[in-house]
Structures are given as structure tokens and as C-alpha cells.
């Protein structure tokens, strides 16, 4: 197990390195630079600015210098657009994004997993059809439609909710629902599939024949195996939450990292963009590792093969 974790951490570091390199050269290949949109800037002033941020050197040297700065000083550089340290910008916007992501994840689990279990246990009844119909809605109705609908139909009618803003925990609810609905739908489908698979096995029939109460059969005998596909989905789910958070943060004006990432792309703000990419990559690597460990602890067969 420890060897497995060690290998995955090494692999994660490799992923981050590839991601950093790939993004660096992609960013360098982007048309325009951080000062293109700046109005009325003389060529001399621009040159001076480029020199100040080290943007005048050849790409490969810039890449080397950045990597050196990142590894030796843990420094992500300065954003020329916002004139602040990238690490500071990320530090300030990170909490809102994490809170949003965690809440959305909670919404997904609380809605998705029970729905999947119910529809598997009550297969081919109206409970099943209603749950799976709901799941289809969650998959097909995009967050950027649900968000505005919640704003007009809920936030503008109920005084407790705000259309946009991020001041107290009540403001967390609508964005979390908007972001969490799609993963909830996928979770419901995967949980249903996983549960059906296990419920059809002989040991469940034996338990039923022995007269074990239905609830115990579900909680003690099937849940563990039935949830394996859902746990395997965790990795992709986190990736979805990150990209989905761009949209939700925009709709509800959450002061998170998504806005910075989009701004940085439009502004060609290289260091900020690289910082964001690295942060996202880091999150995904960590969360994938967590998902793998949970999977291994749920599934003994997988654990032995590690």
C-alpha cells in the first residue's frame, strides 16, 4: 500500500511537471502579450515593462528561470496586470473556490447516492423511473441554465437568498446546488448500476433466504460493493467541479479562482495563468490519489493487486 502511494505521488509530480511545461509553451504560443490590451503605451515603456517581468528573454530561458524560481523559492511570480504576487491572489481566492467545491460535492453525494440506492432497490417501479428521469435532467440541463433559473425563481422571490454575492453561509446554497446537480445525476446512475450488480449476486439471495432484514442487506452486504463505481467516479467528478466552478463563480459572482483564470486567459497574464493551472493540476492530482486510496480500501481485490 505504501509502495502504491509512493508510486502515485511520483506519478503525480510527473503530471504536474508535464502540465506546467505544456501550459507554459501553449501560453507562449498565444497571440498577443500581457500588454497588448493596454492602451496608449509607448514601445519604450512596453519594452521596459517586458524587461521588468523578464518577458524579453527567449522562451526556453524564461521557462528555465521560472522553473528555478518555482522550485527553489516556491515563488509563482508577479501578475503584471494586477501588479500583485500570484501566490497572494491565489491565496485570497482559493477559500471561496474550495468552499463552493466542497458544498457542491456534498450536494452531489447527498442527492445522488440515496437516489441511486432507492432506484436500484425499487427497480422498474415509479421510484426508479422518477430518479433516473431526474438524473437525466441533471445531465442535460447545464449549470448555466440552472443558475439563472435559480436566481430568477428562487433568489428573487425568497428574501433569504441573494441573486449574487458571497457574504454569509446562506449565499453558499444556490451556487452549490447549481454546481452539484450534474455530478449528483452521474452519481445516481453509477450507484444504481453498481447496486444492481451486487444485488443480483448469490450471497444477497442467501442473505434474503436466511431472513436478514432488507435494510441490513443493503447497508451491511451490498452498499460496500455497490458504491465502487461511484467512488471510481470521484476523480472525474473533481475535475468536473473545477471546470464547472468557472461557470458558477461567474453566474453568482463568487470571489474564487475561476474568474482569475478566465481574466488571465483573456489578458495573457502569463504568471497568473500558470499559477492557476498549477493549482488546478495540484488539486486534481491530490484528489485522484484520495479517490484511489478510498477505492482500494473498499475493494479488497483491488487492494491485493497493488
Amino acid at each position: 500500500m505504501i509502495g502504491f502511494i509512493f508510486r502515485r505521488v511520483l506519478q503525480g509530480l510527473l503530471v504536474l511537471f508535464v502540465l506546467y511545461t505544456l501550459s507554459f509553451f501553449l501560453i507562449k504560443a498565444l497571440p498577443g502579450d500581457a500588454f497588448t490590451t493596454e492602451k496608449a503605451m509607448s514601445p519604450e515603456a512596453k519594452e521596459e515593462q517586458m524587461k521588468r517581468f523578464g518577458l524579453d528573454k527567449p522562451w526556453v530561458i524564461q521557462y528555465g528561470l521560472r522553473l528555478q524560481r518555482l522550485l527553489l523559492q516556491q515563488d509563482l511570480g508577479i501578475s503584471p496586470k494586477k501588479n500583485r504576487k500570484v501566490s497572494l491572489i491565489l491565496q485570497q481566492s482559493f477559500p471561496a473556490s474550495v468552499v463552493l467545491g466542497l458544498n457542491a460535492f456534498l450536494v452531489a453525494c447527498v442527492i445522488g447516492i440515496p437516489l441511486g440506492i432507492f432506484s436500484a432497490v425499487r427497480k422498474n417501479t415509479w421510484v426508479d423511473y422518477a430518479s433516473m428521469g431526474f438524473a437525466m435532467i441533471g445531465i442535460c440541463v447545464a449549470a448555466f441554465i440552472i443558475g439563472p433559473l435559480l436566481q430568477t425563481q428562487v433568489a428573487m422571490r425568497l428574501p433569504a437568498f441573494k441573486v449574487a454575492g458571497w457574504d454569509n453561509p446562506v449565499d453558499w446554497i444556490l451556487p452549490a446546488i447549481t454546481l452539484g446537480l450534474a455530478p449528483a445525476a452521474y452519481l445516481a446512475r453509477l450507484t444504481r448500476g453498481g447496486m444492481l450488480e451486487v444485488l443480483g449476486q448469490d450471497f444477497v439471495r442467501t442473505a434474503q433466504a436466511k431472513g436478514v432484514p432488507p435494510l441490513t442487506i443493503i447497508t451491511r452486504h451490498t452498499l460496500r460493493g455497490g458504491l465502487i463505481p461511484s467512488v471510481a467516479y470521484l476523480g472525474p467528478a473533481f475535475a468536473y467541479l473545477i471546470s464547472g466552478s468557472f461557470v458558477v463563480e461567474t453566474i453568482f459572482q463568487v470571489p474564487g479562482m475561476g474568474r482569475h483564470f478566465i481574466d488571465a486567459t483573456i489578458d495573457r497574464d502569463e504568471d497568473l495563468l500558470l499559477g492557476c493551472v498549477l493549482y488546478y493540476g495540484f488539486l486534481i492530482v491530490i484528489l485522484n490519489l484520495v479517490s484511489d486510496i478510498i477505492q482500494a480500501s473498499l475493494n479488497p481485490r483491488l487492494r491485493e493487486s497493488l
Partner: protein
Amino acid sequence: MADTSTVTEKGTSLWRDAWLRLRKNKVAVVSGVFLIVMFLLCFVAAWFTGDPNEQDLANKFAAVGSSSENIQQVRQDDGSSIKETRTLLHLLGTDQMGRDLLSRILFGGQVSLLVGLIATSVAFVIGISYGAISGYAGGRADAIMMRAVDTLYAIPFLVLVILLQEVLSGSTSEVATWLVKHWKFPDETTHRLANILPLFLAIGALGWLTLARITRSQILSLKQQEFAQAAISLGLSPSRILFRHLIPNTLGPAIVYVTLTIPSFIMYEATLSFLGLGIKAPDSSWGVLIKDGANYMETQPMLLILPALFFTTTLFALNFLGDGLRDALDPKAAKD
């Protein structure tokens, strides 16, 4: 996997069986018909709805089903101008700049549906070839190629799509200018294509990972089977074995997977366009229209609801059709 109880005189094939099963699935059939209608609406009927970018600021936010009198100054040969009145019917009303919403939705639909087709084809070609080569080569080459896929898997997809799209858009517009200049390509169409193509290519160029995995595992088991061994011992060239014998047998699962990626690619395009990073004016897509509509949702809810309706129903139909295809092609995996 042929169902032996329904052997007909003609014999039956996987595809024929699948078609018969699919036809029995009412939801899938309705979805298929709906998609055909949507296609015809966007690619044929759209051309009869007028110019999606024609503004008429006197007729902002016209109601659904209303018509407007459009007065235009027409300059005559002798220099004087007369006013000419045209009556325009706005079946779905007009938007914040007085543009006909139906026309905008149908032309926007062209982009959204094309994303599904083009990006998916790109992903299909890359994914199948990559997976097949990796699986067929085996050994160290296979290990390296699959580690590369693992690495790309761990990278946030949308982040790379955004970057790649921006990079590609520089080169496609250069290519378009060059084509227009030297090869007399039609100016407007070429630039329009150059405007939307980068996003399609970027999504396709990064969306092939799962397909490569599926194809690889298929090839790994196929290459052990007698017909493949026979082809190898006959001394056929590797490319012939791959493309004539092995790949055709992997298409079933690949097609199932691909039909289910079409809606997700359409969703990616709309998400990016909603963020202002995808399709740019003067072109539009359903994502752009929904974004525009969301700005006026308090006073003019129809501007949000109508494009959202087209977008969502299309996604529903694609997903239902995909599910139906999966059940038809792989009856074992179908829910019992």
C-alpha cells in the same frame, strides 16, 4: 453476440440485430426523429429566417409571434431616396438589439451541432488510431503510450482546451487570410470557419483519451483470437491487420462511447461560449445566446428560456439516443 433464436433466412449480423433492437426502443426512435428535425431546422430552415445579425434597434425585445415594420431608405438612381417598408415576422420575438431570435437560435444551432460532429470526428480518429497502435504494438511502446494518456487524464480538460483554442485561433485566421488571398476562397465563409474551427479542433484534440483506452483493451483481446493470429501468420502488413481486421471489430463499443460524447462536447462548447472564451461574435452558438439571455432574464425571460429549450431538448435527445444505441449494440450491458 447474435441472438440465435431469431436467425432468419438471410442470416443476421451484429449491426442488423442492433438496428432491430433500436427500432423497438420508442424513446430512442423519438429522439432520433427529433434530432433529424432539429438538423433540418438548423441547416435548411435557418436560411429562410433572414439574417441573424441584422439589427433593428426600433424593435428591441419584440414579443413572441409579433411582426415588425422595417422601414428602409432605398436610394434610387436619380439620387433621391424613397422609403420601402418590409414586414418581418418574429416568430420567437427579437433580442436586445432587435435581431430575430428564431434566426439567431437556428444559426447558433449550426455551430452547436457542428461541434458535436467535427470535434467528435477528430476525437474518434485520434482515439481509435492511438488506442489501436498502442494495443497492437504492446510491450514498452504500449506502456509509454498509456502512461502518456494517464498523464493527460490528470490535467483539467477545460483548462487545456481554453489554451489550445486560443493558440489555434491565431493560426487558423492566418490560414484563412492566406486562402482568401491566394486561392480566392470566399471571404466571409472562410473567415467564419476560421472563427469557429479552433474550438472544435481543441475539444477534439483533447477529448480522445477514454476512446483510446477502450480501443486498446479491445485490440489487446482481439489480437489473441484465431482470425488475427491467422492474419499475422499469413504475413500481412501490420497496418493492414490493424485497419482491415482488428479496428472494424472494435467499432461497436467505440460508437456507443462516441454517441455519448457528442452531448458532452456540445456542453463544453456552450460552457466556454457562456464564459466568453468560445465562439466569438459575429458568430453565435446556443451557449452565447443563453449567456446573452441571462443578462436580461429579469425583464425578458424568453431570451433565456427559448435558446435554453432548444439546447436542452437536443441534449436530451442525444443522450436518449446514445443510451438506446448502447442497449442495442451491447444487450448484455443493457439494464435488465
